[in-house]
């Protein structure tokens, strides 16, 4: 499948700000599931900094905008060919030991609810792959897709207790549950092409990856009860949403920030 991405993120400030600095993780991962055709990331009036590929295989690029800064506009335009690898991150070069993904963060802190769920639904299973599938299904059932009831700071435990949330919450809850039974897990950010059946989800999407010994990293999208296929574009990963964020940035000053994001994903008919 050939997908096009048009993604504009605009940070507008009510008063002119000092310098803005950003760290972008907006580049498609290199693995058998995707082949980049063209990909351009720019910041209006921005100065490109250094870029590198980190130990997790993600490309990161630094940018800055000189003061005064009224707004920062980050644009991603790209075209990419995708393939269904049944969620398996095959051919992805990375160095980080899977065990480094057993660490808790405040967003993926495991409470009794998460620990109990993880233990109950995987009882009697010995295969990590089975456990991962079972966990993903259980989280999808336990948290109903409901926009606007959670925010960026909602933790996995809170989302589960509430029983509602968006893809970030599903991913966090699945990661936390997996780690609680010693399965390394991480947060993945990317894009998802809207499906024709109208299932609810966002084009800027997030899911989880779980490490299965013998296979490697496998993606699980609990929000859509599936594994990522050719409708998904993978950008980067981290211990939680904050670490995997496609854009991390600051602008100096006390101004109020307004965020405006538009993401359009299209499929090129062949």
């Amino acid at each position, binding site marked *: 499948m050939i997908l096009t991405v048009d993604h504009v993120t605009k940070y507008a400030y009510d008063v002119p700000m000092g310098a803005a600095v*950003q760290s972008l993780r907006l580049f498609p991962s290199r693995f058998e599931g995707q082949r980049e055709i063209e990909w351009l990331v720019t910041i209006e009036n921005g100065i490109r900094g250094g870029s590198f590929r980190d130990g997790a295989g993600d490309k990161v690029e630094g940018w800055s905008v000189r003061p005064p800064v009224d707004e920062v506009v980050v644009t991603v335009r790209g075209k990419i060919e995708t393939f269904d690898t049944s969620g398996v991150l095959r051919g992805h070069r990375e160095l980080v030991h899977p065990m480094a993904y057993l*660490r808790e963060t405040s967003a993926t802190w495991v409470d009794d609810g998460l620990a109990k769920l993880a233990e109950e639904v995987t009882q009697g299973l010995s295969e990590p792959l089975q456990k991962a599938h079972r966990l993903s299904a259980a989280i999808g059932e336990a948290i109903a897709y409901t926009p606007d009831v959670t925010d960026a700071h909602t933790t996995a435990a809170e989302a589960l207790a509430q029983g509602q949330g968006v893809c970030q919450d599903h991913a966090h809850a699945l990661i936390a549950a997996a780690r609680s039974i010693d399965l390394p897990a991480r947060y993945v950010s990317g894009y998802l092409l809207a499906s024709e059946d109208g299932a609810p989800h966002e084009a800027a999407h997030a899911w989880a990856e779980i490490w299965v010994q013998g296979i490697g990293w496998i993606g699980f999208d609990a929000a859509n009860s599936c594994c990522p296929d050719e409708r998904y574009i993978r950008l980067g990963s981290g211990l939680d949403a904050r670490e995997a964020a496609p854009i991390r940035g600051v602008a100096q000053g006390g101004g109020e920030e307004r965020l405006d994001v538009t993401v359009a994903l299209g499929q090129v008919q062949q």
Partner: protein
Amino acid sequence: MTDYFNEMFDGGKVRPPYNGLDGWTREMPAEFRAMKQAEAEALFRRIGITFAVYGEGGDPDRLIPFDMFPRVFTQMEWRKLERGIKQRARALNAFLLDVYGRGEIVRAGRIPARLVYQNDAYERAVSGFVPPRGIYSHIVGIDLVRTGPDQFYVLEDNCRTPSGVSYMLENREIMMRMFPNLFRENRIEPVDGYADALRRTMASVAPAKCDAEPTIAILTPGHFNSAYYEHSFLADLMGVELVEGADLFVEGGFCWMRTTEGPKKLDVIYRRIDDAFLDPLCFRPDSMLGVPGLMDVYRSGGVTICSAPGAGVADDKAIYTYVPEMVRFYLGEEPLLENVPTWQCAKKDDCKYVLEHLPELVIKEVHGSGGYGMLVGPKSTKEQIEAFRHKIIDDPDNYIAQPTLALSTTPTFVEEGVAPRHVDLRPYCLVGDKIELVPGGLTRVALTEGSLVVNSSQGGGVKDTWVLAE
């Protein structure tokens, strides 16, 4: 009664290193001594060196007691120590490069993966990055204790930013000012080359993108930090800028320093702030001390950070147990310096032993420092021991235990004259294009009679440390 090794007296005989000091003290009248002690204190106050060592907290304006009785090593003793310290510094750096790379030591089963990769100090953000010359820890502070003429043990390694070196330099400076004769009569190796050596070390790890004489700066959290004195002292001696996060910014893949003549590119940063505060875009988002975007510049090779972020994974107390293994694995050598035998309460058998022998052991927190959160069995009451027993049972992973070491003593000026007091030693090893060790270090002394705790927060003082020339 434990027999402690006295570094000056072997029975009634004076050991050779102290020959030059025997007469000095015996002939020193009490009034003269009191006068000199007051003079030393006034000098320390004047230069403003009042900070707490090793991030121990406490009153930042409190003067750490200075003992005028030097601690002395012969050239031969020192050479042996030096070889052991350099070996250890090499192994620790090899370990860091490895665990942020392929992790061969873990694959070989020589160290448990969990200890490395689930360690709080393991920075996933720098995995895969190779710093200039592959060096992570450019200043390795190795804490040593002595139990016999030839017996030294490493208490702990400090791979991040070991502090206290300004004491080493100031103690010498003040001794030379107060007792010039001593330095004429004894041939003592100088320590004042430290600042130059540190500067050379930093310059030697400038990033590949730096094509001129590298610009170096010391990054401090600011004047409220307990070690601020040391930061400004070293910047002065090295002839480099002392900067705070707000003085720096990133642009175009480089780090820049604001100066009156406009921005100046910075090549090497000797940071005296913790990883967590270095860059709010990479680590703690609420940090006001760091430089946003610095880690992207660092990881794309625009600037060098000393010590490298992530270096802390080599120096926690659980990893410590495996340092001799690192020496064997990476260098193919036998370790020259011994570790203190350590029981890890995380291991069932070890924990059982520890709980059965609490009154004999020293118990430490895995991530503790500064002599806090510690139990010295032989010096504790039954209640204190029982309280610790519960702590260990509740959270065994958090504790290690070591035998109570018979720390050596050196003569120390006390109220009633001269008396033996227990000491340790922290030499500072520099790692760059070469590995250097200034002959000396910081000797800490437990001023309370019988005390084995040398930390300044627990009544410890400092001494000048001599290495005699041949």
